């Protein structure tokens, strides 16, 4: 099934959910509204014709005005792929968690929360994963400024600091 047919299937079931469909790029994607996102995902996984049982990749992205996550799905049985995107505002970003549908999303969502600060609703264990639990800020956001001290420990060496200032 190609991206157009998958789009039609979702469109039929959830007429309001799809915000954008783009199949002119190298890898076609669908943009889904945050509210029906969980139900769309459940449909993608459980429908016999779609049967997306493998979540290849889950990435957080900073689009400037918006934050978003990108999901790459694959079906072992039908060997087709689809990309879903969800975008949310920078203030109080929240996206429904899909970690009970694909358990690989458990750690991936924790990582996105850790580095982008996107909250995944209904995630049972949303803690920081890669950074220390008491780290402040979300480093992969574009407006993140590297702090000078972390708990009294200098983050940048004084020589390195002048270099980074020059680069800016």
């Amino acid at each position, binding site marked *: 099934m190609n991206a157009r047919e998958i789009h039609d299937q979702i469109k039929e079931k959830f007429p309001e959910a799809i915000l954008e469909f783009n199949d002119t790029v190298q890898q076609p994607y669908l943009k889904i509204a945050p509210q029906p996102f969980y139900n769309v995902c459940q449909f993608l996984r459980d429908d016999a014709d779609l049967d997306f049982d*493998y979540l*290849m990749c889950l*990435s957080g*992205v900073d689009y400037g005005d918006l934050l978003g996550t990108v999901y*790459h799905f694959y079906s072992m049985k039908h060997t087709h792929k689809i990309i879903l995107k969800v975008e949310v505002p920078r203030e109080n970003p929240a996206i429904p968690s899909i970690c009970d549908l694909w*358990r*690989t999303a458990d750690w991936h969502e924790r990582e996105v929360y850790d580095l982008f600060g996107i909250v995944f609703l209904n995630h049972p*264990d949303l803690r920081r994963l890669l950074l220390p639990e008491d780290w402040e800020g979300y*480093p*992969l956001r574009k407006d993140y400024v590297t702090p000078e001290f972390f708990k009294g420990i200098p983050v940048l060496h004084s020589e390195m600091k002048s270099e980074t200032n020059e680069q800016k």
Partner: protein
Amino acid sequence: MNKSNLPPSRFELEVPNKLKTEEMTLSMGPQHPSTHGVLQIILKTDGEIIDSADPRIGYLHRCFEKHAENVTWHQVIPYTDRLDYIASMNNNLGYVIGLERMMKLEVNERAEHLRVIVAELNRIASHLIALGTYGLDIGAFTPFLYTFRDRERILDLFEEICGARLLYNYIWVGGVAYDALPGWRDKVLQFCDYFLPKIKEYNDLLTFNKIFIDRTANVGVIPAELAINYGMSGPGLRGSGVPYDLRKIDPYSIYDRFEFDICTGRGEMGTVGDCWDRYWVRVAEMYESVKIIRQACEAMPDGDAKETVPRNIKVPAGEYYMHTESPRGELGYYIISDGGKTANRIKVRSPAYSNLSILSSIAPGVMIADLVAIIGSLDIVLGEIDR
């Protein structure tokens, strides 16, 4: 697939508390010889039986994804070396092919063949480490010396072609960094002839050793559905009987020209998806890699393999998810470009990261000694997990 078919997740587990002794919390790692790096696992144990295991990662976090946004496209390649530092060639390959597909760039034939040869040699080197250290983990010291003896020959071949033994920075956009010297191809073929009989040595020493089989067969069984749900890939997923190999399913470079088989676990010593199956897939894959190397060496044309694009490239605006089969599984690069000299975002989907996340689901109910066997059979590299 129905959710009710799956075993309980780590949030739903109810482990029968058989001994009814006091629960003990144990910190395994971060400096533990069998965690293959700095990995900490918080174990809750009931006697020798594990009630829950919570892996804590991040000790090796080096902000790869943030760095990649601040350096030019080419300068990211040495950083990719350091993700999975024992299979650097495969890391270079995935990133570079991703860029080339975004730029719609053709690579000359000789470079394509060299790339496949070094990637498969690196796969063998990586599997040799996996085999040797797996033996070490569960108490067999000697196979480690044998596998490292043969890995050394591969490193010598790499040293000759690019000057480095561990972090190669060899595959560049548009080609490779250096062409192979005359006679290098013959040395690779000689290595293939030398190497095949050595696999039998490993089999005699370790694979079919009674003690080894007792330690690994029927231990850490991962059913195929659970493995797919957890996003496992590579030998971990193929050990569970799923023929998912990106070199066949979504061919990149010139892998579609070569004949080789996908190795899957068949439960020869116990259950499909146990530690022995995952181990055996790695052994069997070394045979397949040798097959590919031989075909690529035969077909490699003469000519110039050096890259043809300037160092300061600009990648057209757009995005691409490139996944390749690294020795650990599906290595994905999700690259977003806004048309400039640096990346807007590079996300690495590291195979060992997803493979490790299954640990908290299969660890409950096993003995602590078996947990070591399970971690070893997943063949994790923490540099790639923490990035």
